[in-house]
């Protein structure tokens, strides 16, 4: 098998993710039109009649909105997953290092947190501190903590059974130092893969939150709200729904494929089983 076919998932996923990321970054310095500029004359214009992808019900340029939306979506997802991963990995690896009651407490807390879907906790948090970017980040971040706590604990427990941990203990290292020097580097690959997959989930959740109106506040564009706004015009201007929907689907697909591809590269054992 050539490298191209063997790593096809990785390449395709990477290409999609990279393109979206490039669009998001580009939107910070340039968009085809100001994404919040209202031009009633171009109201509901189909693609290519006004701008590349048409205009929405206020005549705003859809291409520009999608680009800024990509930035909002990816940055919220990234920060949230990063925070959730940091907290989750910390808790999970400590649970594995300490065992006993500390482990029980951490894992049962993880179970409780896991019982609340991100969307539900976002609505609760929005009720407390009001909707906004912070609400979305906290809700998605908190949702990610138990995911990473579980994975980190499971993987760390396996590492703790290895001889080199016994060797490290025989060298006089305590649980914290062993976790930092020996456990984390050996579970990092797994965590990176999981983070990529969680990013896909976070993008989807962020879109869901904006759809419900607890994410990025207007007029700052977001994919989720574009979808929700499009409902009224579904029969007149279907591209208002199709384009942001496509963007969300592409982002999720790209990140998932990237995660799968990374897993195949990092875990040769799994690849052989297929």
């Amino acid at each position, binding site marked *: 098998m050539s490298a191209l076919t063997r790593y096809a998932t990785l390449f395709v996923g990477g290409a999609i993710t990279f393109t979206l990321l490039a669009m998001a970054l580009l939107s910070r310095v340039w968009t085809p039109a100001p994404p919040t500029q209202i031009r009633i004359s171009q109201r509901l214009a189909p693609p290519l009649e006004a701008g590349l992808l048409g205009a929405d019900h206020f005549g705003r340029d859809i291409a520009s909105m999608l680009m800024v939306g990509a930035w909002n979506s990816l940055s919220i997802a990234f920060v949230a997953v990063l925070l959730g991963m940091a907290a989750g990995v910390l808790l999970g690896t400590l649970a594995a290092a300490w065992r006993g009651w500390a482990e029980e407490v951490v894992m049962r807390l993880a179970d409780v947190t896991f019982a609340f879907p991100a969307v539900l906790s976002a609505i609760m948090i929005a009720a407390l501190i009001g909707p906004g970017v912070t609400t979305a980040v906290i809700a998605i971040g908190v949702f990610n903590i138990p995911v990473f706590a579980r994975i980190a604990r499971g993987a760390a427990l396996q590492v703790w059974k290895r001889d*080199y941990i016994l*060797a490290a203990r025989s*060298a*006089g*290292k305590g649980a914290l130092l062993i976790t930092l020097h020996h456990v984390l580097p*050996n579970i990092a690959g797994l965590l990176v893969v999981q983070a990529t997959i969680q990013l896909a989930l976070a993008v989807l959740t962020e879109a869901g939150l904006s759809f419900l109106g607890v994410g990025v506040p207007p007029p700052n564009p977001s994919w989720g709200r574009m979808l929700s706004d499009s409902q009224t015009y579904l029969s007149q201007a279907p591209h208002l729904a199709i384009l942001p929907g496509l963007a969300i689907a592409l982002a999720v697909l790209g990140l998932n494929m990237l995660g799968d591809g990374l897993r195949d590269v990092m875990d040769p054992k799994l690849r052989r089983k297929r």
Partner: protein
Amino acid sequence: MLEVKDLAVRIGAPPTELALLERVSFRLEAGRTLGIVGESGSGKSVLALAIMGLLPAGLRASGSVRLQGQELLTLSEKELCRIRGNRIGMIFQEPMTALNPAMSVGDQIAEGLEWHQGLSRRAARARALDLLQRVGIPEAKRRLDDFPHQLSGGQRQRVGIAIALACGPQLLIADEPTTALDVTVQAQILDLLADLVAEMDMGLILISHDLGVIAETADETLVIYAGVPLEFGTSRVLFQKPLHPYTRGLLSSMPGGRGGRRARGVRLPTIAGVVPEPGRRPPGCRFAGRCPYEVAACNAALPDWHRLEGSQPARCIRLKELP
């Protein structure tokens, strides 16, 4: 330097409690090597872990282990951490799995120095290079940044030895250090260990199931069977004139062992039966049931040390009557 007295390791709560290891006593002086020999499941590795204070959860050690007069069994985990790797080094059987695959060998050696001796990163690295050279790794400078998978089995074990030696320990415990290696590499590693013991004036506890390895390297030998030491003496005497029926059986079942080369086509003598598991061990002499010289009295109680005139001690009540 190291004094182990009546060390026992038990598992479970009193009514169903099992002893994995009992009545282990020995002394080890600096610059000497003690060989501990026994079959799989005899409790050799448990002994090593008990001295290090690294017994798995559920196992309890009792008795006394003193390193230069300091009792180790009653120390807290924190105090033990300061001793492990600093005053006691340990070498493991599998050099592949005992090294962290995600860390360069230089870092793994330097780690203990930074941790125990507060060396700077640079100083620890320089010392790691010295150590790699001392344990005989060619092109040590280039190897410093290699990862374990880039080294051969023998080289990995040398790295393991370098890690154990890093802080200049007083006691080195080597648990089957050569079992996973080729015979030629085995001899090199044993020579290296012998050199290091003399040079650094350490005590070495060498644990092995391989009588050849022990005979070659150890000054004194402790024979353990089913969790109990059965014979203890200087290796030269013990391997020439074994007293306990178990030791005799072991030595005579070695190809080309005691009695010189055997004629081709003649079967090696074996010891009938298998090592009893903990919980199925005989109440008296642990070797009863497999011993060709067994009498009823053997099952009365665990025999004390007996010795012939001027000989090494052996736990056998019939020592004087044996042929």
